[in-house]
């Protein structure tokens, strides 16, 4: 279970998050939505220690992690994995080596054993034919799936997805959606997805929270969002250019 309590975060004079609080129930597919630059990525980076809040608390499985240093963050990062927006594979290694790296480091496997295990994991995301290719040779959707495979190597309970479908073609995007849903249904993983892809949101989300101007505007399920009278929310989820919504 993850809880954000009164998070405030500023960069210089600009306050990006002004008192954000919500809970993420375990085992769900949880979407954080909002306009570009509203602070969604900033928020989830707090969960893996890439950023620290100015004030507020973050609770993950009963531990308050907002003041953890790099050493204390180690175990947290094995529970909570992240798939970056641009997939962020290591360009100097093949896909198999990319997936094998955390296996070598955390499970003390030999190189051979790690590569074998890596190929097996690439099968799960249906990328095993490209195991020996380098990331720059692959398309965005393919890189995304390898990145997901790599994130899963630490056997996490939570996986964070930073705009997983943003730069993908529609077919690849739906495949990624299906993968995220599968993780939750079959492996019991809690997925936290930052997104503004309306198709994704309304096909796989269990619960949604919308950030607007640094605060939580609304929280609820898909039906709650579709039925809300709030003009700002309606404008966002129906994708209209004009209305009360201000960036």
């Amino acid at each position, binding site marked *: 279970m993850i809880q954000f309590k009164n998070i405030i975060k500023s960069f210089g004079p600009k306050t990006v998050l002004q008192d954000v609080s919500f809970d993420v129930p375990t085992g769900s597919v949880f979407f954080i939505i909002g306009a570009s630059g509203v602070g969604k990525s900033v928020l989830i980076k707090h969960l*893996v*220690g*890439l950023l620290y809040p100015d004030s507020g608390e973050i609770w993950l499985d009963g531990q308050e992690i907002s003041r953890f240093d*790099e050493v204390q*963050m*180690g*175990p947290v*990062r*094995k529970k909570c*994995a*992240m798939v*970056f927006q*641009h997939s*962020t*594979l*290591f*360009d100097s290694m093949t896909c198999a080596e990319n997936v094998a*790296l*955390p296996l070598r*480091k*955390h499970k003390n496997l030999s*190189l051979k054993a790690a590569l074998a295990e890596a190929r097996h994991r690439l099968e799960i995301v249906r990328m095993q034919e490209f195991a020996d290719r380098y990331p720059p040779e692959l398309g965005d959707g393919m890189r995304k799936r390898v990145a997901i495979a*790599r994130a899963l190597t*630490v056997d996490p309970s939570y996986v964070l997805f930073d705009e997983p479908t943003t730069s993908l073609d529609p077919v690849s995007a739906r495949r990624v959606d299906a993968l995220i849903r599968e993780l939750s249904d079959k492996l019991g993983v809690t997925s936290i997805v930052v997104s503004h892809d309306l198709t994704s949101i309304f096909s796989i989300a269990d619960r949604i929270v919308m950030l607007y101007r640094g605060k939580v505007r609304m929280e609820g399920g898909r039906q709650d969002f579709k039925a809300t009278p709030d003009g700002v929310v309606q404008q966002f989820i129906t994708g209209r250019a004009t209305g009360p919504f201000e960036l």
Partner: protein
Amino acid sequence: MAAQTTAPTSAAPSAVSTFLAGVGRSFLEIAETAGGMTILLFRVISRCVPPRVDSRELLKNLYKMGVKSLPIVAVTALFTGAIMVIQAATIVKRYGAEGLLGWGAGFGTLREIAPLLTALMISGRVGANNTAELGTMVVTEQLDALRVLAIDPISFLIAPRFISIVATLFMMTLFADALALFGAAYTGQALLDVSPTTFYNGLTSGLLGFGDVANGLFKSTVFGLVIGLASCHFGLSTTGGAPGVGRSVNATVMASAAGIFVLDYLTSFALGG
């Protein structure tokens, strides 16, 4: 005393104060860089004792850096040896001291020129390259990805590269010493009819000793530390996308060059002959 018309205080600052502000700002920047590099040094050392350095990355970098620098060090060393002889030749001819050509060209080469030029070339070839790689990794979030995978970037990425740079410079200086003397000997023959035997005799005649070689090697280790630190520091602190990478590379090359010369002087002074 002539009456002075006072300039309005809200006018543009005078040239002197702008200059002083610039100097002050440069000084602060230099201090910040030096501080950052020192902190990095401690973090790298803390991963060496007890050794927590990724051995695969270490070997990969040693190979890559060594292979990359070999041709350029070879060319530089051969030409440098030749140039040293050409410069010493004027003096040697003036005093008719052909027997001392080995010493004349040799001491400058071993103590000073070979370590210096090798360091400058490696700073360009290896140091700048390393900064570009690290900087690109930083701006494409690959470094963040490592941290999120709970892999320590210093052990995995930085320490192997740092150690490789120092080791590469040391070995390349050794190699450059030999090649430079080789180039010098044969240029001596071509230009002054000094046979290579006479050259090598002059070299080992007792005026030059192993101490001079060791002096040069110690310097090359120090230079390696400077290049490694500058290269990794500027790579890691890259900001601002692709143009930022270019700026970091520029900074590395300059800082390495300046650092090399300052430390060259300090080491010469400390080792005192």
